[in-house]
């Protein structure tokens, strides 16, 4: 028997978000940037609290303080890393007598290697932090994936994608999706991803070809079908999610929010955000019949804000560096 689906709801208003945003801007400026960590938490809280599933809102528990401390630790790590690399360069050049160009090349390779190796740790750590600070009905979410698994998926994905001239892509996409979905829990109960590359192969082929033919416009429809595929193959306690997002929704909302931001000289920004969130959540529902009594808390006490800080810090550096290139 087919069960009923319960829609997700978003109740937030642009005006409220605008006020929070305005406050964030002013306080961020007056504190020379430090408040931005608290500001981010406020906005995430606003979005979570206004998102309802089964008529119950989500909660976000991260604090500006822990995010700020994570960021400071990340900066310290970057400084030590930079210092070590400079030390290595000097050592190679002065002590080992290596040609400066060669020494630079060696240090560059080592530095990139370390950064590349750190990426899966940062992604997994950030996800752990985010989920451990998210709750619904006072039960926390949890992420149990490991960086090693993620690194292997990417390594395998890149190699096979190259060898098969891209034919592996839909399988690669599913491997990544299932890593994130299968390793997520609500309390002690896991989410399950049932999608396979075979199911997605046609969508991928059509998506890429039509995107090329339509000079990119089909990309919206392609993205929508990927979104539908991901949600429609996500299961919790045997209950399915259902996503009805269409390419037209994505296309229309993207154009509308871009126009809104442009014509209001940025003031319409919060309304554009709400428009986008609404579009996703109005199209999402979850099958009824979750057995709540079976769910028990499984709090990830070890999740830390360090990875979050690392990704914030590298984002900031990327933004600053981006202006120079």
């Amino acid at each position, binding site marked *: 028997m087919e069960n009923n689906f319960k829609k997700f709801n978003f109740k937030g208003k642009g005006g409220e978000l605008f006020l929070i945003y305005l406050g964030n801007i002013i306080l961020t400026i007056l504190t020379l*940037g430090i408040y931005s960590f608290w500001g981010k938490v406020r906005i995430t809280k606003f979005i979570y609290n206004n998102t309802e599933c089964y008529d119950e809102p989500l909660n976000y528990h991260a604090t500006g303080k822990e995010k700020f401390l994570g960021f400071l630790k990340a900066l310290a790590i970057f400084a030590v890393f930079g210092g070590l690399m400079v030390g290595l360069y000097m050592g190679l050049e002065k002590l080992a007598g290596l040609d400066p160009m060669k020494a630079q090349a060696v240090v560059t390779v080592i530095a990139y290697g370390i950064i590349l190796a750190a990426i899966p740790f940062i992604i997994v750590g950030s996800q752990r932090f985010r989920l451990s600070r998210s709750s619904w009905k006072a039960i926390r979410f949890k992420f149990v994936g490991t960086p090693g698994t993620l690194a292997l998926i990417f390594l395998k994905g890149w190699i096979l994608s190259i060898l098969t001239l891209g034919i592996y892509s839909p399988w690669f996409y599913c491997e990544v999706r299932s890593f994130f979905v299968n390793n997520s829990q609500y309390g002690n109960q896991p989410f399950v991803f049932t999608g396979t590359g075979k199911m997605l192969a046609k969508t991928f082929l059509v998506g890429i070809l039509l995107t090329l033919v339509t000079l990119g416009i089909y990309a919206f429809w392609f993205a929508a079908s990927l979104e539908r595929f991901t949600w429609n193959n996500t299961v919790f306690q045997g209950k399915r999610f259902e996503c009805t997002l269409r390419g037209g929704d994505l296309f229309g909302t993207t154009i509308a929010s871009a126009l809104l931001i442009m014509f209001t000289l940025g003031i319409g920004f919060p309304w554009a955000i709400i428009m986008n969130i609404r579009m996703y959540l109005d199209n999402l529902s979850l099958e009824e019949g979750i057995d*709540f009594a079976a769910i028990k*808390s499984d709090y990830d006490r070890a999740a830390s804000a360090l990875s979050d800080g690392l990704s914030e810090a590298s984002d900031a550096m990327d933004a600053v560096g981006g202006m120079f290139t």
Partner: protein
Amino acid sequence: MKHDTSSATIDAEYYDGLSPVPVKGTLKISRELFFFEPASGSPAVTMSYGEIEDIEKILSKTRVIIKGSDNNCATRMISFTGKHCKKLIMKYKGDTLTNPFVKTAFRFKHAPLILRSMFFLLALPAAAVVVYGILFESYRLVPVSFDKKLSKLIEGKITSECKPYNDKKLNSVIERIRKRLSPKQSIYAYSIKVIKDDRINAFTLPDGKIFVFSGLINKSTSPEELAGVIAHEISHVENRHGIRQLIRLLSLSVFLHLMIGAGFEELESAELISEITGLLIFMKYSREFEEQADVQGAALMMKSRMSCRGLMQLFNTMKREANVPAVAAFFDSHPDIDNRIKFLKDHVSREKFKPQPLLFKNEHWTRIKKIKK
């Protein structure tokens, strides 16, 4: 009997943080503690205001987030509807806060909308002043020695990538230009070097090292044209345009990153829009510096008894040679060349002195400027 307003009772739901299934019952609020009594008759849960992590109001419901009771329970939650109880719980929570900073932040966060809006209106000008100060005045806090250190760093790169050009006669004319144009009380030691490159251009390091491309010398019809360019570059240095530019670029990108990054990672187009805005603002101020350098360079030329006629001539040459598409011109950091020529024409018409030539009687610029292969 007098009605007691210091305590209250209300129907509520209690989430123990161990199971998502709430327990129905009654919430009792008093000044020191609050209690939840399950309707089933199970023992009551007693909580103190210090355990409250957050109070959120979502639509009509108030949610009180409370610290977890054991290792596996992160947070508990009580949910109820009712204004009076919310006010009371808020007041008692506020009273338990001892850190004045935290207390103010808590009170402000839950203050009425009108009060918060008023604060923002007052804070807006203060924020504007801070932004203005950082973007436009903070360079004053950077010591000149930093300009010099930075220049050393860039100089290393230039000397490793550019080919210098040396010619005795040309150098002697350039030395004359340097001596005549260097401001008397300047804290910078100017030096002028020629780089072998066919482009018509020149640039300066913040510590006063000027580099002129041989292409510019080649195209010039008199040494005064070269002098005009150098006067322009000297004005950049004297006004510390280099470091000011750097500070603007850095702070603008940090600023925009913070604005967009405030929890809106979902909207990628926003990042793009902010980057373009940043670039446009940046370009506009670059032009402002160029205009200032044009004006002060012309004044410096006059002070050194040289005419700007030459520079005007050079701009005309550049205009003829450059075939810049309109779009590229929009993004160009230099002011519109027609405006620059117009400005110089104006300036030249006001030159009421007898220029002192840079060349001796027996010297010929066409011979001196000739760049050997």
